[in-house]
């Protein structure tokens, strides 16, 4: 993975999402992009609409789960697919903007819905080279 980016990792029945970047916020943004990519290729999604989410948690790893679950909730209830995220974290609080567009079966190929983010393989950490990585398995 280059300085900033996301990837999926293997999990028996489901999919792991991992994001890394130069800051904690960047790692959360990339992890959310990895989540969005479980449903549909973010490259095919235009950032036409934006929604805001906010959450608060007693630990950074729980904050990641809460953030991803907030995005999953928005995907389920707003019918939006997402392509880009902007995250700010202040202590235990997170605020984020997610940009995307409504799912259009003609233009998007959606693979699967995500049921929830889990605490399996859950990790938020700063690596020796200073980069941050955030990851967990999502249930599909």
């Amino acid at each position, binding site marked *: 993975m280059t300085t900033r980016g996301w990837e999926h990792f293997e999990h028996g029945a489901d999919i792991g999402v991992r994001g890394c970047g130069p800051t904690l916020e960047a790692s959360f943004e990339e992890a959310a992009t990895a989540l969005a990519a479980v449903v*549909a290729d973010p490259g095919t999604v235009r950032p036409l609409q934006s929604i805001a989410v906010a959450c608060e948690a007693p630990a950074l790893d*729980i904050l990641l789960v809460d953030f991803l*679950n907030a995005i999953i909730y928005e995907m389920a*209830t707003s019918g939006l697919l997402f392509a880009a995220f902007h995250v700010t974290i202040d202590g235990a609080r997170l605020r984020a903007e997610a940009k995307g567009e409504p799912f259009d*079966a003609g233009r998007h*190929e959606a693979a699967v819905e995500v*049921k929830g983010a889990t605490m399996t393989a859950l990790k938020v950490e700063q690596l020796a080279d200073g980069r941050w990585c955030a990851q967990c398995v999502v249930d599909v």
Partner: protein
Amino acid sequence: MPERRLNRIGEDEWEIAQEGAMRVPARIFASADLIAGLDDKVLEQAANVAMLPGIVEASYAMPDAHWGYGFPIGGVAAFDPEEGGVISAGGVGFDISCGVRTLLTGIGAGAITAQRERLADALFQRIPAGVGSHGEISLTPKDMDAMLRGGAAWAVGRGWGVAADLTRTEDYGCVAGAGPEFISAKAKERQKGEMGTLGSGNHYLEVQRVAAIFDEDAARAYGLKAGDAVVSIHCGSRGLGHQIGTEALREMALTAASHGIALPDRELACAPIASETGQRYLGAMRAAINCALANRQILTHLARSVFAAILPRAQLKLLYDVSHNTCKEETHTVAGRPRALYVHRKGATRALGPGHPALPPDLRAVGQPVLIGGTMGTSSWILRGTAEGMTRAFGSACHGAGRSLSRHAARQRWQGRAVIDSLAERGIIVRSRSAKGVAEEAPGAYKDVDAVVAAAHRARLATKVARLEPLICIKG
């Protein structure tokens, strides 16, 4: 976990002896071949479950067990509230009350042949399936609560089914003790447009052919005839269950320590049954079970409307509806004493043996139909509950094939279009809105369901009645 800890205690039964923090042993039902292919994580998870407070007898893993969240998928565990027993959101799963219902059609599969494409298209058009699909039913908050309390009985009351459907649904289509008031506004919002939808992933509606009968007496009692067409529906409580699971997992993980519970794995998140957290989750989970039962009932109604238009000779009669992600309060005799236990079945099907009072009178002598879903290219199975299964694993059996390859690996290996074409060559029509989704669900990504069922049969958890082969698959 080193393999030497696994002792073979029967032809298809293995045990991890109680040690360390384990309160009871862990038992795995599987053939030697299935054990050889088993992820070590399953053994670790089965042993972890054995550490939870109030667990009774053993932590069990069914022949299709695979790595889950805290509990293995294919895990069964019973807890006694009088011994500090717990309820675990991870032990139920995100898709609360996901399950299978099978409907008889009363017509031979041959009678469908000429109409197969038309039937597939009409079902695909009528059954909302896949990402972003919505049902035609939108519930007001009052209707939502009535649905959550009433389950399939609520749906039948609305005209989406007949009273006879309820006698052939687990718990007669409605579990008691549902607490819609314990469900968040978010969970209800997530469900608003999702009544009567299949969802995605491994969910499906299939038209199948009864390919072989293994138990004539049970088949007769179940109304199954070789060569007949049946319809099976696999789905759960949709967004409502997912949101309840998400919220409960978080709460239980963060509060376990305050209840004096040391979790070997955060995902074993649980709360004492007697606690306020535990009672709230139980109320919400029971309401989600009712939601799943109502959902499968509405899908039944939609399937019936399609058959009525295309094959009016077919009378879709419910054989049975059984869930495989639940926790239920049941009475089991342990060491000669009846005890009220909370039995978690996570990716495991309840399999009540002959004579069980919870079975409808016309099935009581035979035992419960146990419905095992396959993949779109492999068999599904109908088994019957046994007396031995009641004592071996609290009346539980496997639930499906279980994945052997991750979704990611499946997508690397197969193209959705090619999967659909090769199934078509075998006479199986697949309709799906997502080629990617089909690739992820390719039959080759799953374990051999026949081997899983054979192990359950030999272990007498449930015994073979009929094998079903897919004809049409509407893929979620």
